[in-house]
């Protein structure tokens, strides 16, 4: 393995992540997976939305596009259709990808366009100071759910599987080696690959919910994901740090949850031109 520091922009250091944030672990695993591809550095494009995870994009020395809140999959769709030679990666967070950008995410999955989308799920809006996210566990305390969250959280992987993503996986910041494998498989997948990573926000979620130190939160990830690779079909699904008085049963499913083949969107679009449509 070569030195992945060549993928970083020294001018953008120090980074803006809080002490104890898991996002750096996830980014490291992603860079090692990109390194495994042996791709030319300039042929990798990383497109991100708005939020802590999306903000990582500025630190990465590729062709990087830091877009608007939630819209990264749409920008990436245009870029990938225009430049099928580029490997296009989307970085998003749970608020960015599942709330304001939910529509773009499901349509990218439906089209099966060749993008690799990494969703950092820290169960909260971190950059804006700890507000309720569509992934915040029921009962979870945030600045905008001061009496406990009265909503139900999304299961991002099930959403993506239902929308038509042809590769869906979930990993933990606790397991960067497994993550690296998951990212590698996602990057090599010829179609829309979606990988959710459980990544902690000790500053704005852990602290408000008595979840302990950053290390304690990482260990909790491992405990909650005891049954790795539990099949999606089993119906066992919950989220980490469940603070509801009556927590849902069952562990979080991790590993590769969907891996199927379906015609890729860009290839089908290009086939129209090659087939002489409109001549």
């Amino acid at each position: 393995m070569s030195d992945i520091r060549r993928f970083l922009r020294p001018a953008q250091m120090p980074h803006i992540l809080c002490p104890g944030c898991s996002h750096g672990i996830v980014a490291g695993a992603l860079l090692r997976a990109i390194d495994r591809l042996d791709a030319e550095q300039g042929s990798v494009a990383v497109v991100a939305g708005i939020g802590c995870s999306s903000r990582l994009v500025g630190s990465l020395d590729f062709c990087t596009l830091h877009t608007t809140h939630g819209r990264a999959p749409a920008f990436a769709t245009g870029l990938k259709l225009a430049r099928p030679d580029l490997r296009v990666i989307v970085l998003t967070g749970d608020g960015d990808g599942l709330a304001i950008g939910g529509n773009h995410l499901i349509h990218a999955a439906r089209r099966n366009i060749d993008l690799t989308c990494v969703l950092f799920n820290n169960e909260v809006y971190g950059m804006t100071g700890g507000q309720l996210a569509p992934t915040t566990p029921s009962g979870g305390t945030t600045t905008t759910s001061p009496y406990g969250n009265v909503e139900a959280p999304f299961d991002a992987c099930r959403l993506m599987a239902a929308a038509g993503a042809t590769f869906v996986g979930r990993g933990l910041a606790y397991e960067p080696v497994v993550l690296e494998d998951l990212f590698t498989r996602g990057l090599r997948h010829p179609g829309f690959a979606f990988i959710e990573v459980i990544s902690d926000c000790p500053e704005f979620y852990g602290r408000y919910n008595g979840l302990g130190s950053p290390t304690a939160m990482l260990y909790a990830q491992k405990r909650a994901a005891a049954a790795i690779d539990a099949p999606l079909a089993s119906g066992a699904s919950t989220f980490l740090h469940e603070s509801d008085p009556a927590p849902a049963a069952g562990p979080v499913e991790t590993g590769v949850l969907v891996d199927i083949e379906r015609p890729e969107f860009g290839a089908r679009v290009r086939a129209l031109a090659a087939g002489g449509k409109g001549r």
Partner: protein
Amino acid sequence: MNEIPQLVQGNAACAAGAIAAGCRFYAGYPITPSSEIAEGMARRLPAAGGVFVQMEDEIASLAAVIGASLGGLRAMTATSGPGFSLMQEHIGFAAMAEVPCVIVNVMRGGPSTGLPTSPSQGDLMQVRWGTHGDVPSLVLTPASVAEVYELTVAAFALAERFRTPVVVLYDEMIAHMREEAVLPAVPDGGVPGRRRPAVPPARYRPYEPDADGVAPMADFGSGYRFHVTGLAHDDRGYPTQDARTADAHQRRRLDKIASYESLVAPVRGLRLDDAEVAIVACGSAARAAEEAVGEARRRGIRAGLLRPVVLWPFPDESVRRAAASVKALVVAEMNLGQITREVERAAGGRVPVVPCCRADGELIEPEQILASVESLCPAGARVS
């Protein structure tokens, strides 16, 4: 495409102009009365080697257009009022990140869902001020099918030249009208592409401007690795909170389009030389105004027409010149007085500015404009 006049629909002319200008990417979302542009592009782009994609909404449409443009393709979307409202976020992004693109707004009656199948000029101010923050604005307002074609081509030339979004703005009437038009072929190189960096990748700074304020632009995947963001950024494209840097780029983005008149003459006039009353109108309203000028002349009133073809930047100088030689200005517009205030500002109190407005979904008629003109010129004061 050739020099022989054909019977063409406005929206069809727009699609033809885009293809002729080298547009090879279209992303859009269906909306009346612009959908024929998307339909035309869906039919034509594959044969031109381009890409058509129907996105999930107008926000995504302009996002995809910006992504494709960063990949090096000339790219366009088209919409109408409700969709144009949704696009404001990315119009700001394209202006901030300096990504060339063309947006066609076929106006219908507003606000909100309004009058979907009716013409209007309700977006004349939104097109300038719709997005948050200070942005450069280049907006072209064709008044005929032939001009839709001509100005769509020009929009690509402006976007590529200045690295900025350009809007082509017309209404339902011009969009759906079929009239005789010549759609001249655009020669190779007729629409020059964006300026490319002259330095190697290691020395490239994507927002380091040349003397004219425009920075050379590399494509993603061309060997140049760089950062693009909607945050305030420095020459390298990296986010900054530095007030001086933010200010310098803010002002540069507004100033860089200053030479737009070298690509498109901003106004087209009719009988202004000896006019005592000038009508200011664009698009459909200008067609009615042209008719009103002829009738006023027949009635002994020396009327003329000042027609902005570039609506934004507003043609202040042309209005000032007209105000210096006429007795009054009539502003004919299919809204409740949006451009009137701009004309008042440019005229600077030299002459009365009389609004002549209609915003009920019907075309403004020559008779209404003529009545405004006549009210300024009592019968006794007319030349015979």
